[in-house]
């Protein structure tokens, strides 16, 4: 999902910066307030950030004969919501843009929007909807992380399509062309990311379900059901 340095023409790179900046600024504000009010969330925040670091460094082969990488943002969006997750994504994307020439500083706004905002927003909404409909906790986490990953890549395809509309067929035709590169490639990767996120989430619930209940991420009832299943 990294749009390479210099690959978004005016006015698109400015537009995506303009959309991302307020979200990230609000995310920083929320993060500071959360850490101040509730120190016990800090280790979980570190784990969610580290999870993005690990997963986004893994370039995996897919059924299309090309490679892509997971995003790791599903975990953060489930526990902390999309605002704070956008800040975690900024850290990783800046590191990769500066040291690895993956993505870029001029395309940072667009990349933060896809990986740090759109994906996590989808993940958060899917998780909340799945929990409300009474789905099993780990299945809800799986679905949220899988769809957050997939949505990230579809948004990247959309961003590129808007910036490079085809001569015939316009932005829709180029969306099909960009989605052909990303969408199928990402399906198995997204599923693996969802599964690994669910496993990671299980370990966090095992160890600190008290914090997650206080943060209103899981209900005390859902934790009791899981404990009962283990007994």
């Amino acid at each position, binding site marked *: *999902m990294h749009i*390479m*340095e*210099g*690959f978004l*023409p005016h006015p698109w790179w400015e537009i995506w910066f303009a959309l991302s900046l307020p979200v990230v600024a609000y995310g920083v504000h929320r993060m500071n307030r959360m850490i101040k009010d509730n120190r016990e969330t800090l*280790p979980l925040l*570190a784990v969610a950030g*580290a*999870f993005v*670091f*690990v997963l*986004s*460094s*893994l*370039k*995996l*082969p897919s*059924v299309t*004969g*090309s*490679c*892509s990488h997971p995003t790791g943002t599903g975990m953060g969006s489930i526990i902390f919501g999309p605002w704070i997750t956008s800040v975690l994504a900024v850290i*990783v994307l800046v*590191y*990769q*843009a*500066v*040291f*690895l*020439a993956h993505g*870029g*500083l*001029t395309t940072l706004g667009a990349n933060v929007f896809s990986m740090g905002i759109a994906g996590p927003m989808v993940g958060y909404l899917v998780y909340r909807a799945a929990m409300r409909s009474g789905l099993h906790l780990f299945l809800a986490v799986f679905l949220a992380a899988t769809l957050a990953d997939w949505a990230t*890549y579809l948004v*990247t395809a959309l961003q*590129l399509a808007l910036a*490079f509309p085809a*001569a015939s067929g316009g932005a829709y035709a180029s969306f099909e*062309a960009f989605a052909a*590169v*990303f969408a199928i*490639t*990402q399906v*198995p990767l997204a599923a*693996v990311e969802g*599964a*690994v996120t*669910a*496993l*990671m989430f*299980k*370990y*966090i*619930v*095992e*160890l600190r379900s008290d914090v997650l209940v206080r943060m209103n991420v899981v209900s005390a009832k859902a934790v009791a059901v*899981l404990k009962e*299943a*283990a007994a």
Partner: protein
Amino acid sequence: MKIGSGMKLEAIVLGLIMLFIAAFAYTASTGNHDWSGADSQAEGVISDLTGGSYTPWYQSIYEPPSGEIESLLFALQAAVGSLIIGYFLGYYRAIAKAKAVSAAPDGDRKQDA
């Protein structure tokens, strides 16, 4: 505290990863793929759509001088992340265990120590 039905989730995740590897092995055996990055393939699409007329207007301020150094930096990224995850999960596990031990009757505490 144990939750879920034992190692069921671990088994499912492992199964899915095996499936992922099998899909890779199958794809690799059915033709010549270059396994290039989807991100750089998107560059190819841009070039097709614009008839090759688009040139990036800004260059990366730094590029790893070789593929080796690039993979070093990626490995470093993964290592730092894993370290943080392992540290905190271990820290939580030890606290949970210490609490369980101090809550247990004296006899158990001696055995555990």
